């Protein structure tokens, strides 16, 4: 024991543990350890500028980067019955929900929006892994159904960004029932011949992969995203062998024929536009960042028409 351990180290520790310095301005890449400046990281859509590692991105940030001019309209999602099972483990489910809402600033684990990407009208849904592991709840089911309904009403394609550990245990069987429920939404799009594109992001597992996240017309994944049904640890315990390098990663799935493409986040927008426009029989897109779409012309409020209709006078005039 010396004076350094007793005296100096606590001071240094307190300096470093007071997260104020790095937390907001700098993020350490969990893959390569590079310290990334927040603005630089944000401009790169949370992809490490040094090693291309794709970090989590919130649905809102993703939509801001995706939609033309960052402009999108949120789609309202009907709220389901709260805490349907009166579930409690070590904590009450409503308390876990509140904590997740506070931590993310979002109401639930799925955000739905409509807008234009590359001047292509679309509906987008994005799952938020930060919200209770993105788990599939009745709200998430409602969100996907709402997204499909808007797509149907406006004849637009649906693009869904998945990220989840599976069904929400706190909603028990009703969590599980979102598998068939969301599959009905996929069926609605199929019947209407509207494209449904799934972008699988890290991580997408369990009942989510075993329902809407694997039923896209086109299946795209972000690089190195973990995608699978069972957890790797459970598999290793069951088969009593070590799993190969890259198991259940996007590239591994691509090799095994389970995906159409693995696409870098920075190229995702252009790729979606290209694919969607072909599937929708639209002419090729104009490339590059586009400004927000012009607001829809609001019909001017005209003064009340005069008692005699102008058309009527015209008609009368015609035979002359």
């Amino acid at each position, binding site marked *: 024991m010396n004076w350094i351990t007793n005296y100096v180290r606590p001071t240094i520790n307190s300096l470093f543990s007071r997260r104020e310095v790095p937390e907001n301005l700098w993020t350490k890449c969990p893959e390569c350890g590079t310290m990334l400046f927040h603005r630089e990281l944000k401009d790169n859509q949370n992809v490490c500028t040094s090693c291309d590692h794709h970090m989590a991105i919130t649905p809102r940030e993703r939509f801001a980067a995706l939609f033309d001019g960052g402009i999108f309209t949120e789609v309202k999602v009907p709220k*389901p*019955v709260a*805490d*349907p*099972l*009166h*579930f*409690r*483990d*070590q904590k009450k489910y409503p308390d876990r929900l509140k904590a997740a809402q506070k931590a993310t600033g979002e109401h639930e684990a799925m955000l739905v929006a409509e807008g234009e990407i590359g001047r292509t009208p679309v509906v987008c849904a994005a799952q938020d892994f930060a919200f209770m592991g993105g788990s599939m709840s*009745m709200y998430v089911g409602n969100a996907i*159904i709402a997204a499909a309904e808007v797509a149907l009403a406006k004849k637009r394609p649906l693009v869904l960004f998945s990220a989840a550990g599976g*069904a*929400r*245990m706190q*909603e*028990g*069987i*009703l*969590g*599980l*029932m979102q*598998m*068939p*429920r969301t*599959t*009905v939404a*996929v*069926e609605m799009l199929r019947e209407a011949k509207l494209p449904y594109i799934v972008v699988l992001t890290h991580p997408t597992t*369990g*009942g989510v*992969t*075993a*329902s*809407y*996240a*694997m*039923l896209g017309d086109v299946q795209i994944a972000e690089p190195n995203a973990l995608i*699978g*049904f*069972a*957890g790797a640890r*459970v*598999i290793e315990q*069951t*088969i009593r*062998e070590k*799993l190969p390098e890259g*198991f*259940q990663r996007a590239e591994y799935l691509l090799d*095994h*024929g*389970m995906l159409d493409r693995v696409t870098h986040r920075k190229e995702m927008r252009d790729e979606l536009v290209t694919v969607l426009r072909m599937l929708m029989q639209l002419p090729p897109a104009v490339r590059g960042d586009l400004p927000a779409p012009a607001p829809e012309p609001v019909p001017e409020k005209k003064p009340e028409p005069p008692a005699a209709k102008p058309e009527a006078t015209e008609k009368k005039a015609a035979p002359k």
Partner: protein
Amino acid sequence: MNYLEFEKPLAEIEGKAEELRAMARANKQMDVEKEAAALDAKAATMLRDLYKNLSPWQKCLVARHPDRPHCKDYIDALFTEYTPLAGDRNFADDHAVMGGLARFNDKPVMVIGHEKGNDTKTRIERNFGMARPEGYRKAVRLMDMAHRFGLPVVTLVDTPGAYPGKGAEERGQSEAIARSTQKCLEIGVPLVSIVIGEGGSGGAVAFATANRIAMLEHSVYSVISPEGCASILWKDAEKMREAAEALRLTAQDLQKLGVIDRIVTEPLGGAQRDRKQSIAAVGKVIETMLAELSGMKPDALIKDRRKKFIDMGSKGLAA
């Protein structure tokens, strides 16, 4: 007779009665009938009391009871001309899933179910009822055939869940389950499903996305096993009793939640105590559910199924 942990006191009494009778058989002089009958009565009361208030965890144990009738037993007893159809035409035939053409009350149907096996050899052969992607793909193929030939589909659900294996993942376990659920929603023929034992998460959904769903009285249907849930939420797999309680996985709770339509009453002491009676009861419920759907047009059947799942859960426990 295999006794469950909570049936131990019952096992003792029934064992004693059996012992007495065995002694009497060896020694004709002994008259034990009165004493044995008293033990029988005591056992009967105990059995009734035990099964009157089974906890959710105890129901899980009953649902997994090795002596319960399994899919094959129901098919053998309730269907005639059962003609198994094998394979997914792609990779393999999955023995955890059995299915094929058969007649139910003389009418042709397609029957599909998970089979767990009933001894070490068949259990291994059946992979304990844990299907691989090929099992779901076989089911998709059979449902498709049923659709084209206008045959009602009957599914029997009894699985701990999909098999967590390396090959299963590589060959698209999730996609296979998703496609099976999707196929359930697309077929224009009646689809009825009965959970006869364990309805283990996605592997069960893949077969049970039906027009009518029934559960045996002591069967369970859950998003995750109580052990799995306990180890995640309680960080302690030993808390499975609490997890089973919280998950509301019993037939009774599922009916309250509006997830299932009917409960099939089991013989006192569970389906394993009187296999014949439970098989007959399941036969009856299949008949009733198919009758409810008979005469419905393909489009109406598809609509009925979709509406059922879209509306599901909208009322919570008040359903």
